[in-house]
């Protein structure tokens, strides 16, 4: 390990070294800030970098440690947050012009917990505007690039977080996943991303896209890092009525457990159809072999309503979004159009100027889906299909402990390739969306590279609140397939 550069350390390694005073938080944070300065102009993973605040916080960590006090398990370790988590006094944009100068007067629960664990905030990660996108190209602040090939997208919407982790511009980050927004970019950037069970991580202070689907989760370079970070951010929060009051298990301990006898289900619907790239299929097979080689058992399962998931999602998510985003009206905060002559004109122009095309598209779809006379046919029907999709999973979990699928149908595509074709773009999330509709947890773990050298991830899904099983299976894949996690990117 001595030869590994500082920025390539794992989150747990960095935390241990600070704790054991092998390195100061100041040095560690300085190294990462230098890395951001050198590489981020190419990647654009950050919307906001906080060099002074991070350095000051690191110095404070060192001082406290000198007096014998540690803030928590990540004392002095620099991390980043997707710019969807409100941070007190730190600009939080959600990737949108409408919030370009928004300074929240409060911290999101996730921010509180990460900072409470001692982490030093390096900055806020780029994202698709209001998390609506699969490529981070809809950000008002410009696209993030995939550190493995900067002509390609990093996935989205947590593309900034996945790219920053893959480019070693932070030790880990927290993203959000509404239809695959953690897992798909993690897969495309060759890192680990976890979408926890709905209700596992508080949504308080996390800017809402689709409230019944949104869930925050870790993005890190190793399964163990992701497990330890989830352990910090998970847990009941009375400010979020949908968060569940269940104890948080020791996720880290689950990573090393054997998979012998673990029943791995292969949902046949996920392997049918011609959208799945041969490279991805081959890589996921390697992940399966890694599991069976260690004694896991393969079972075939069926999720018959899978084909309805995408259309269901594109009714539920836009409907909720149309209501969640209505508050951005120029009255109290955020962008306000200049020179409007009256209230309605002010609101209309504020929203016309403040939102990008994809956000407007989804607000319109959602408004339509909820309108009088259409509710039953669209939103109401979608909710019923959602129940069927959840039932499919629960039935599959009678015979399988985890399901193994590709995370995304293809490796990273090129910038601009799908921006003019939203429907094709929406297909990037075809394997990740059902998990959100069912409220179950999922993880994407690297399992190989394409012939072009682009990372590929495998997705594992489990019953609600069985994240431990995901970490066990992902840990086994990771041990069997030691893959490079830091992108070969030079400043």
């Amino acid at each position, binding site marked *: 390990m001595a030869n590994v550069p500082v920025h390539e350390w794992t989150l747990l390694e960095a935390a241990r070294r600070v704790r054991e005073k092998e390195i100061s938080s100041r040095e560690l944070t300085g190294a990462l800030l230098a890395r951001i300065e050198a590489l981020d102009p190419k990647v654009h993973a950050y919307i906001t970098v906080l060099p002074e605040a991070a350095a000051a916080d690191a110095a404070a960590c060192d001082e406290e440690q000198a007096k014998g006090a540690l803030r928590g398990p990540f004392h002095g370790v620099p991390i980043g947050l997707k710019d969807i988590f409100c941070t007190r006094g730190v600009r939080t944009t959600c990737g949108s012009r409408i919030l370009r100068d928004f300074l929240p007067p409060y911290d999101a629960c996730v921010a509180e917990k990460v900072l409470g664990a001692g982490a030093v905030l390096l900055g806020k990660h780029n994202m698709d505007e209001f998390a609506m996108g699969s490529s981070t190209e809809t950000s008002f602040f410009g696209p993030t690039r995939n550190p493995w090939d900067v002509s390609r997208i990093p996935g989205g919407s947590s593309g900034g977080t996945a790219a920053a982790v893959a480019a070693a511009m932070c030790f880990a980050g927290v993203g959000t996943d509404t239809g695959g927004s953690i897992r798909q970019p993690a897969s495309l950037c060759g890192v680990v991303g976890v979408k926890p069970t709905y209700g596992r991580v508080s949504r308080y202070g996390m800017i809402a896209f689709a409230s019944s689907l949104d869930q925050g989760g870790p993005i890190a370079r190793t399964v163990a890092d992701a497990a330890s970070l989830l352990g910090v951010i998970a847990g009941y929060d009375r400010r979020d009525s949908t968060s569940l009051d269940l104890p948080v298990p020791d996720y880290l301990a689950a990573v090393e457990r054997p998979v012998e006898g673990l029943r791995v289900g292969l949902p046949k619907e996920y392997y049918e159809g011609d959208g799945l790239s041969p490279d991805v299929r081959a890589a996921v097979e390697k992940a399966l072999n890694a599991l069976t080689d260690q004694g896991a058992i393969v079972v075939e399962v069926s999720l018959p309503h899978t084909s309805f998931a995408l259309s269901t999602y594109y009714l539920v998510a836009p409907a909720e979004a149309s209501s969640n985003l209505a508050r951005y009206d120029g009255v*109290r905060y955020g962008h306000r159009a200049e020179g409007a002559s009256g*209230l309605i004109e002010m609101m209309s122009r504020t929203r016309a100027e403040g939102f990008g095309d994809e956000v407007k598209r989804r607000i319109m779809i959602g408004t339509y889906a909820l309108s009088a006379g259409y509710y039953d046919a669209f939103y109401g029907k979608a909710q019923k299909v959602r129940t069927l999709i959840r039932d499919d999973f629960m039935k599959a979990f009678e015979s399988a402990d985890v399901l193994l699928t590709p995370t995304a149908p293809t490796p990273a595509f090129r910038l601009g390739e799908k921006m003019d074709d939203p429907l094709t773009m929406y297909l990037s999330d075809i394997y990740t969306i059902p998990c959100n509709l069912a409220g179950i947890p999922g993880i994407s773990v690297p399992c190989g590279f394409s012939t072009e050298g682009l990372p590929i991830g495998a997705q594992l899904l489990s019953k609600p609140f069985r994240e431990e099983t995901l970490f066990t299976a992902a840990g086994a894949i990771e041990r069997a397939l030691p893959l490079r996690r830091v992108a070969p990117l030079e400043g």
Partner: protein
Amino acid sequence: MEFEAVIGLEVHAQLSTRSKIFCACSTAFGAAPNGNTCPVCTGMPGVLPVLNRKAVEFTIRTALATSCTVQRRSVFARKNYFYPDLPKAYQISQYELPVALGGHVDIEVDGGTKRVGITRIHMEEDAGKLVHEGEFADAQASLADLNRCSVPLMEIVSEPDMRTPEEGGAYLRRLHDILVYLGVCDGNMEEGSFRCDANVSVRPVGQEAFGTRAELKNMNSFRNVEKALEYEIRRQVERIEDGEKVVQETRLWDANAGVTVSMRRKEEAHDYRYFPDPDLLPLIVDDSWIEELRATIPEMPAEKIARLGRQYGIPSYDAGILASSRALADFFEVSAAIYAGNPKTTANECIHWKDAVIAGTLSPETIAHAVEDRERGTISATASKKLVELVLSTGKPFRALRDEQGLTQVSDTSALDLLVDKILAASPKEVDGYRAGKAGLLSFFVGQVMKESRGKANPKMVQEVLKRKLG
């Protein structure tokens, strides 16, 4: 042709919880603009609502007191519309699945009892208010005060069971009494704690089908509701008689002009795009919670009036006044228990001193002692009144004051004999006159005796003694 009106009322009552329905901000009236706000009630990005348990309990208690069926599962929904006093651009309300359904309230009309059905009761949050710079018509700017945002409201929707403005008024007063009795609403109409919208239509007598209805808003007193209904019923009947049609619309009551004016037509109505609020779980109410709350329901006004009349033998008019305030009725019952000799007088005294009783500055002992002493002839009515006033101003006990002030009445016959003899001896001419038939002189002698006793003689007994001695 003869017409009858069909009236249904929607009451918005502010629940008198200390904090708002979805955040911990205070609900106190009169704070500085935007003083009672936080990121949650001002709709900042990423914040989430958390339901106030007290608000639920207040609503369930109201449902139980109006014989509604409390729903085991109800759902909060978002009502979406843009307005600057609504910071989330949606109001959290209940739509398809409200907390309570199917109850009723009995009202007294024309000497009989009429049952008015309650369709539903649901919970929702209030919106803020806009303050316009200058006059509304040419205001250059508007300011939003969000203190009222997320103040808990309960909407009580009646069946279209009322036929006259008087029935509407009686229903509102009865509902108001129930809410205030339960302590779930302070009932203050001026501050907007108890607001009413009315749906009204007319139809020829005998016709089953409803006519086209108008919704009336902006009525801030019982009297205004009755006046607005009277006006609107007359307006609709006149339109029909003129061969025109009543259009479905929302109309505002203009109390100064005494008319209703059109606000918006049906076709201008919003599409609120209701859907279940994904930030809140369905509200599940189990039987044990309902029974726990049922045990806290006090006797309701109608039952109380009947019982007070029955138990104490007081007229229903008096019972009605006593029952208009739970505090007053309770005070009466305690007073009547301390001195049970004359409940009717006790009731009169309680009603006479109503303000002080409700303000909590009188004790039931004071009234009980005042009534008892008068009954026994120990003090006069005048002295009783004076003593209660002294209790109020000094805070000393009634009987201590009575003795201290020497206001005890002389009811001792031998003492009165002496007084009467003295007066008769000093007024020989009047004695002769009385005996010659001038019966009116009796009050002269009473006055003289009272004067001599410095008001302490018992006037009734003085009369008796005089009659005996002069007879």
